[in-house]
């Protein structure tokens, strides 16, 4: 999803050229740039951000921040990581961009000594809740990477702390800021796809999902490959599916009512604890189903969210919309007639009777949802975050999207573990 970065200004200009501005006006990130008063920080005050967890994602967030930092008057005031090599690499990125942040190995020092306006939390999943709640207690806004937390109770506690402190909580679901999704969702919600019966989503890769250990030293295994161990992660569910269940809920404008699932360690039997092969079905109150699967031993189908209505289909990851009308019949009438006559004259007689026509997939290539798809949705999300900080608040809908996606991801894990169809327990409903 992260593509070449265009600044928000360039992007908006391009949108204006393609005439998409009106449809995107209601989007959360354009809303962030509206002329509502600055209740947080004035436009001339520097917004100070700290990155907690400077691993792969933390450093990616840093790089994207620097693409608009001077234009948006933002700086990185501190970095925090308990693994020295990652902290050094992140510091290097800052130095290359002329910024000299303080460095810490304990996030509590970020809160007490640096006191930034907001933190970007990109630590392993099980570490999200503690840091987020402590930041809220200190009056600091939080951008927390998805999924929100390792347990249902921690997820709820993070949400409650956000409400109690009245501080911003943005969860790292960058698709919420992705113009392809914003435009596609607008069309879905306007009924262009008709009644959505099913959403099919999947994420397939073909690799062991392991990161190399420094000097191949096994003592770093859990620090580096935390996502393979149940104590820290729900594996494919929290790392990949959480994004896609968020998309499904957004498309349907509702949360599921139940989930069932099954999973296995089918291929990568290397001591990992999380499944490498998962399949779940989420049911919604109106009867819609979201059928999900993820595996990491075949990548032919890559990743996709397919929103299937009786009038059309949207495939977000590839930026395409398809109609249920047979748009392949585009040849002029007279040519169709000639070809029909030809077929009648030369085709062999069917063996199994006229009604046996296999239902193969429609070959139609569909149309792009938006023309200009060269952008980084994460950068757009970070730019919006900075504006939310200036305004002192973010749309609650954004936080709720993240919360519900995280809760339903963990309920999916529970459904797999218990072999039961599960509903959302009362205490997690917000």
């Amino acid at each position, binding site marked *: 999803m992260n593509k070449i970065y265009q600044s928000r200004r360039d992007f908006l200009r391009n949108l204006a050229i393609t005439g998409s501005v009106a449809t995107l006006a209601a989007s959360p990130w354009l809303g962030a740039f509206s002329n509502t008063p600055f209740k947080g920080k004035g436009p001339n005050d520097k917004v100070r951000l700290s990155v907690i967890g400077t691993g792969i994602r933390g450093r990616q967030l840093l790089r994207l921040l620097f693409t608009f930092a001077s234009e948006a008057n933002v700086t990185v005031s501190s970095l925090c990581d308990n693994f020295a090599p990652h902290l050094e690499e992140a510091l290097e990125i800052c130095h290359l961009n002329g910024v000299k942040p303080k460095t810490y190995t304990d996030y509590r020092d970020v809160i007490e000594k640096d006191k930034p306006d907001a933190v970007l939390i990109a630590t392993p999943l099980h570490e999200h809740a503690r840091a987020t709640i402590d930041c809220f207690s200190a009056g600091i806004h939080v951008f927390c990477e998805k999924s929100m937390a390792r347990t249902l109770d921690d997820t709820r506690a993070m949400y409650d702390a956000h409400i109690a402190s009245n501080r911003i909580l943005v969860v790292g679901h960058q698709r919420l800021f992705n113009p392809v999704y914003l435009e596609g969702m607008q069309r879905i919600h306007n009924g262009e796809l008709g009644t959505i019966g099913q959403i099919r989503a999947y994420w397939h890769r073909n690799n062991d999902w392991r990161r190399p250990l420094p000097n191949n030293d096994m003592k770093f295994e859990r620090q580096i490959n935390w996502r393979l161990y149940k104590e820290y992660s729900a594996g494919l569910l929290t790392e990949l599916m959480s994004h896609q269940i968020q998309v499904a809920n957004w498309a349907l404008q509702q949360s599921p009512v139940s989930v069932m699932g099954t999973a296995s360690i089918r291929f990568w039997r290397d001591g990992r604890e999380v499944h490498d092969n998962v399949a779940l079905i989420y049911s919604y109150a109106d009867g819609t189903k979201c059928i999900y699967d993820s595996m990491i031993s075949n990548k032919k189908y890559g990743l996709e969210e397919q929103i299937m209505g009786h009038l059309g289909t949207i495939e977000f990851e590839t930026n395409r919309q398809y109609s249920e009308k047979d748009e392949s*019949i585009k040849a*002029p*009438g*007279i*040519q*169709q*007639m*000639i070809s029909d006559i030809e077929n009648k004259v030369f085709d062999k007689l069917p063996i199994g009777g006229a009604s046996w026509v296999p239902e193969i997939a429609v070959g139609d290539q569909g149309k792009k949802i938006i023309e200009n798809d060269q952008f980084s949705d994460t950068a757009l999300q970070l730019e919006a975050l900075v504006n939310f900080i200036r305004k002192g608040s973010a749309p609650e809908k954004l936080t709720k999207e993240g919360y519900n996606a995280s809760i339903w991801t963990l309920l999916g894990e529970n459904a797999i573990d218990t072999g039961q169809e599960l509903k959302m327990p009362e205490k997690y409903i917000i």
Partner: protein
Amino acid sequence: MKDIVIPAARIKKEIAAVLISLIIAFLINVYSIIKYQTSWVELFSQIGYVVFIAIIIYIISVVLRALIYIAKKVFVKKL
């Protein structure tokens, strides 16, 4: 070399046959536009196909008329 003389009546007959072929081809196009629910612009845009079909119809009419002519000759001689 001896000049081939085509009588005026013959020419008129052939022009009529060409015109009728064109009209039939045109009507086939109208029919296919209605049947396949395509655009009426095809009345003009598919004119190449119409002419092509008209030529085929004309050729068929020539062959048919020639066959009738030959058949008639053989039949009349026998009588």
